[in-house]
């Protein structure tokens, strides 16, 4: 019993330390590298406007385009690492924002609904729920063979319930041990257990996979 409590504390500490480091890198990319690139872009545009020679102007234009692409990639990378919306606006806006990037990355359409009033959640719990949703959606892109996903959030006074359904090819739960993403699923369950919540997975071949997450508020 004592061993299990220590183990939980250690898992929780490792996950939290990892999240803090990821957040630091994400902010550094967004506020540091991203801002510097923006300053370079603005400077180059000023130079470009004052140049008459066509070939130099074209060359500068190519450079500004390259910087724009790099800025966009830095922004996406930063958001992918740690969504700024999570601390600034909360879980629901962070999920909405991630879904936009997800659809434009994998081409999978996600229908999202939220019932009830969004409640404030501890940052370490909301990041756990966010990461579980992120892992579920990544698994769907990798294995589910689907074009549509549905996510429902239900807020009550004491609990947040999230269900994710993928309408995909599904799999035999009994085969989970042999499944390539069983470790990912185990991590999702572990993360939710550490928050005091739960993560349940059910699947039917040819019908799809359902992930039910619950978090006490």
């Amino acid at each position, binding site marked *: 019993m004592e061993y299990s409590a220590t183990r939980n504390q250690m898992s929780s500490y490792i996950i939290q330390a990892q999240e803090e480091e990821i957040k630091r890198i994400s902010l550094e990319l967004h506020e540091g590298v991203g801002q510097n690139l923006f300053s370079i872009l603005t400077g180059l545009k000023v130079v470009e406007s004052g140049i008459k020679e066509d070939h130099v102007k074209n060359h500068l234009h190519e450079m500004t385009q390259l910087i724009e692409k790099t800025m966009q990639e830095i922004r996406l990378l930063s958001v992918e690492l740690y969504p700024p919306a999570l601390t600034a606006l909360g879980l629901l806006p962070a999920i909405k924002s991630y879904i936009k990037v997800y659809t*434009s990355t994998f*081409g999978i359409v996600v229908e999202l609904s939220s019932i009830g009033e969004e409640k404030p959640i501890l940052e370490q719990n909301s990041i756990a729920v966010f990461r579980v949703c992120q892992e579920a959606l990544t698994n769907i*892109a990798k294995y589910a063979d689907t074009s549509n996903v549905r996510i429902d959030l239900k807020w009550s006074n004491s609990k947040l319930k999230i269900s994710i359904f993928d309408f995909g090819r599904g799999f035999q739960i009994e085969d989970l041990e042999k499944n390539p993403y069983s470790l990912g699923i185990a991590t999702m369950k572990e993360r939710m257990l550490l928050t005091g919540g739960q993560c349940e997975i059910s699947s039917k071949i040819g019908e799809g996979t359902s992930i039910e997450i619950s978090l006490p508020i």
Partner: protein
Amino acid sequence: MTEIKGISQVNEVCEGLKKRIGCEFVALALQNEVGPDVRWHYASGNLNDKYKRITVRFGKGIAGKIISSGSPMMLIDFPNDIYGKVTDHPIMLAEKLVSCYAVPIFFNSSPKGVLLVGKREKYTFSEDDQEMVQDAALELEQILQNQILGLGGYV
């Protein structure tokens, strides 16, 4: 503005290439006229319409790397022996491709697009295959250049 899918010459080049190489999938990604986004504007042999919603990320996956480096690339046995994560290759996942060969499409000497051929089995594209893709890319460059100059762009 005209849609790439509606340009019959583009269809002819891509379908001809698909037949000659004996591949299952051909797609064309191009940088949008405004902004840095690169999207798949044309696909043949596709299993679904996910490609229409995918934005190629600069420097990521096969198409993103081609746009950033300007060099051709080949994947022989996806997802084995790939550079980066499986999820960095969304077109391979979306179309269940196992092998592909892709080349850049240049406009004004800069890589602005990608022509990709793919198979849903392990395969090494021969030098002849690679040459055929390169030739098709040159043809497409010419067609698209004329279209853009003549019709004022594409969507």
